[in-house]
């Protein structure tokens, strides 16, 4: 088992912007250096690395640039934002099995000034899943927002259109209130209200501009080490209690339209079950969360996967203020990817670590013993449960 075998000891972000003016490699070096400084570790302490298959920064280039020495473990996780907590998953397994001691998990992207995900899959795709996208490009269903909207329409049909639309606004609103008070957030100090939300253009189906995340340049890094070494680090450690990863049956990347019911995300259901089993925790034990929010509706479905609401009932949880700082589950306290930055969920791991440390810019008043952080959905996904060290 992996419970309590490893802990997050260092976290680092670059600034988030629309145009970083430097390479993805450089951004990543800066985030890794910040994370090492935060941990009080030297580059030579690192002997493992994990990142996204989609990341452009080569492990050995990063190692040379940062001054990391011999590496005995490296691996990559596929499917874009679905990889976020997969980095923890890989790191914990490698540490628990003795393959290495200290892993740097990283993701750096010029997601605004470079390749923009909002442009969809219309470019030159010469990969193994090219034919899969071919079922959707000819009709024009080729942007992330459009795939999510297809599930959303079905979900609204079953859960109640008006209530779900209200809940989508509440997700957008609450998250941006958090971003407005986080100086690192791209939406810092930006007022946001219903009128601003309603005034924006339609993107796809029920989704308007502010139901969609930012596109940003920046990098985030997390250092994970063996639990017994974590205590000696500058800020101690935040324990990894459980981490699940899953691609559930009958899956396509973003377009799993052929399941018996598509108003749900079975891959996250499986990952949640796995993480709860490993940790021995239940939803009642979770005090705060960072839930992947590329689009507002995906937050609703994940609340159901992790047991905070029954299937098709998460709108009620949200409309009762469940995500707010004084609510049942303060969520995306950094402003999420809707308003801090879109660093493919790894900035979310940084924030979840802060929540357990008690150092979020929007730290809830109550004690945070356990925090949930999740990966992107629609793709193979996962989630991790973090907690105070025993």
């Amino acid at each position, binding site marked *: 088992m992996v419970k309590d075998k490893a802990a997050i000891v260092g976290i680092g972000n670059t600034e988030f912007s629309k145009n970083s003016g430097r390479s993805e490699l450089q951004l990543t070096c800066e985030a890794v250096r910040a994370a090492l400084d935060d941990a009080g570790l030297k580059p030579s302490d690192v002997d493992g690395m994990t990142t996204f298959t989609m990341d452009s920064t080569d492990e050995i280039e990063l190692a040379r640039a940062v001054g990391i020495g011999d590496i005995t473990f490296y691996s990559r996780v596929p499917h874009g934002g679905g990889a976020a907590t997969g980095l923890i998953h890989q790191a914990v397994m490698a540490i628990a099995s003795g393959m290495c001691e200290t892993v740097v998990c990283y993701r750096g992207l010029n997601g605004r000034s470079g390749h923009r995900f909002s442009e969809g899959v219309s470019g030159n*795709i010469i990969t193994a899943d090219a*034919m899969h996208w*071919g079922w959707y*490009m*000819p009709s024009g269903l080729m942007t992330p927002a459009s795939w999510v909207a*297809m*599930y959303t329409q079905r979900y609204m049909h079953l859960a109640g259109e008006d209530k779900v639309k209200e809940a989508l606004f509440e997700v957008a609103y609450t998250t941006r209130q958090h971003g407005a008070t986080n100086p690192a957030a791209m939406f810092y100090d930006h007022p946001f209200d219903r009128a601003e939300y309603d005034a924006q253009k339609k993107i796809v189906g029920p989704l308007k501009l502010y139901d969609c995340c930012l596109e940003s340049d920046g990098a985030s890094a997390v250092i994970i080490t063996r639990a017994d070494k974590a205590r000696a680090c500058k800020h101690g450690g935040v324990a990894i209690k459980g981490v699940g990863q899953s691609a559930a049956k009958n899956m396509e990347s973003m377009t799993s339209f052929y399941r018996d019911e598509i108003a749900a995300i079975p891959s996250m259901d499986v990952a949640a079950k796995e993480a709860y089993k490993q940790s021995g925790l239940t939803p009642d034990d979770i005090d705060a969360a960072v839930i992947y929010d590329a689009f507002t509706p995906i937050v609703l479905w994940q609340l159901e996967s992790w047991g905070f609401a029954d299937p098709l009932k998460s709108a009620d949880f949200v409309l009762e203020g469940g995500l707010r700082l004084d609510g049942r589950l303060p969520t995306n306290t950094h402003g999420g990817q809707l308003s801090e930055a879109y660093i493919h969920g790894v900035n979310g791991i940084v924030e979840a670590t802060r929540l357990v440390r008690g150092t979020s810019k929007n730290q809830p008043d109550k004690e945070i013993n356990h925090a949930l952080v999740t990966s992107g959905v629609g793709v193979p996904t996962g989630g991790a449960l973090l907690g105070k060290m025993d």
Partner: protein
Amino acid sequence: MTPEETKAFEEKIHAFVGRENGPPKRGNDDVNEAMIRHWAEVMGDELGTYTDAEYAAGTGKGGLIAPPAMLQAWSMEGYPMAENPAQDIQRQLHNVFDAHGFTGVLGTNTSTEFFRDLKPGDQVTAHCIIDTISEQKATGRGIGYFIETLTTYTDQNGEEVGKQVFRVLKFIPADSNDAADSSTEDDSPSVPTRITSPRGHDNSWWWKACDEGKILIQRCTSCQTLRHPPRPMCGECQSIEWDSIESTLDGEVYSFTTLHYPKIPGYQYPNTVGVIQLSEGTRLVANIVDIDYETIKIGMKVKGSVEQVDEKTMLPVFRPE
């Protein structure tokens, strides 16, 4: 540029905001009938109030007036400017941009307000300031900043007669290779067409049938299970033997969505796409057409047909029954 360099650069350019572009510029000529007549002829805008003094006197205008759109013309530099551009504040600002790689310039839009008609004998003076500089923007042309100048026009009595806002984009030109590439693509259709599926061993048979007007559904010949999208092996019985049946394209809307933005060339927007539950039992993603998208409901019965949707593409499309 590093964030520090960007900050220093932005401080430099923002120091220009609010500055006068130079001393007020009095027009070389007062408003006069000859220039009005030339303008009206060239523009093909020969209203009586511009060109016929007798007619104009009988209208509410009480005499000849200048076409309002001439406002900017009265204070223009004239031809010498082309050879020897003014080294004014705006030029200095552009030089700062040029020195940092923002060498591209594009006039993006202008708007003008007119406060009163100008008549022969009026004297026009232009007062121009650098009014605003936007935050950095990523545009189709490249990374850049929008600069707005505000010109206020006054008459011989110092009264305002009009105002003009002129907006330019100063940008870092995208790689010039792009232009070279696109100029060689002369075999592409004149109107953009849809993005088609790559065709490989496991799917080309399906698309070939679609080209011929038929929508097929793959069928396992061992256990008869239908499957779509096609795959090389049956997930139920692991057989790799298969054939296909032709769909009747009777179905209902299982889910749908309508795309508004971004607008991708080759597609009409709003663009509605549905997941269609076919009567055979499999689902198919295709456009729903000829219906107001706000009236589509999940469960609605639809009928499909295979149609030529552009110069190169055959696709199934569905309409309400």
